[in-house]
């Protein structure tokens, strides 16, 4: 099941990127798709973590939320960069609880934190995340764990 959808996805991707329908090129595309599928099988990288098919319908819901956060954070950082006085920043290094049960959830969480300007995940360990934040406000905001709750709510809840 996983492999069928994987091959199907690769075929669609190949056609969308090439836009050619001559027999020779289609045959070459088929060969490269099969080779990719074979190599991924050999490397054993098609599992529920690297290819989270069961979550793919939920990611758009989460990313629409993340987009809003990114734009808000962008405006905040732009204001700090362009302020007339000495840049009003108060860099912080904070530890926040990991609060995600699965590895995949923790990676989504850490990636989202890094993606929003103003916060960068430095370390991801068994039970905590070390985050460098540009200002105290951003750090406090992060410490409330809203983003983690949104991930749990939007991605993992049935």
């Amino acid at each position, binding site marked *: 099941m996983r492999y069928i959808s994987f091959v199907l996805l690769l075929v669609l991707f190949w056609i*969308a*990127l090439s*836009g050619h329908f001559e027999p020779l090129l289609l045959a070459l595309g088929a060969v490269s798709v099969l080779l990719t599928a074979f190599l991924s099988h050999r490397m054993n990288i098609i599992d529920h973590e690297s290819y989270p098919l069961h979550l793919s319908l939920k990611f758009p819901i989460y990313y629409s939320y993340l987009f809003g956060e*990114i*734009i808000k*954070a*962008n405006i905040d*950082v*732009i204001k700090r*960069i*362009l302020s007339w006085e000495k*840049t009003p*920043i*108060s*860099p*912080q*290094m904070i530890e926040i609880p990991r609060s995600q049960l699965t590895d995949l959830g923790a990676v989504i969480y*850490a*990636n*989202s934190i*890094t*993606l*929003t*300007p*103003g*916060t*960068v*995940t*430095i*370390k991801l360990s068994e039970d905590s995340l070390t985050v*460098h934040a*540009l200002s*105290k406000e951003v750090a406090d905001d992060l410490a409330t764990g809203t983003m983690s709750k949104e991930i749990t709510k939007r991605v993992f809840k049935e």
Partner: protein
Amino acid sequence: MIIDILSSILLLVGAALGIVGGIGIHRFPDFYTRLHAIGITDTLSALMILLGLALQAGWSIAAFKLAMIFVFLFFTSPTASHALAYAAQHSGLKPKLDQK
């Protein structure tokens, strides 16, 4: 016509945000804070430039490719930032923190 105007606005704002990111790199005091300035160029600036280009391309394969560029950027740029920050911390670079 409207599409042309919209796309040039998006392209101009995207380019301006790229410059803002560059200014940020110069104004912020240390390595870690400069990473945050890069974040602007990575996310909003790239998004606006790609959107502007996609408007020019219309509904075509080129637009799909631009969307793919954006998706890949979305996944790789935080990984790159994290790798940089982790390497800096690993080699013992201390961040300048706010003393309070």
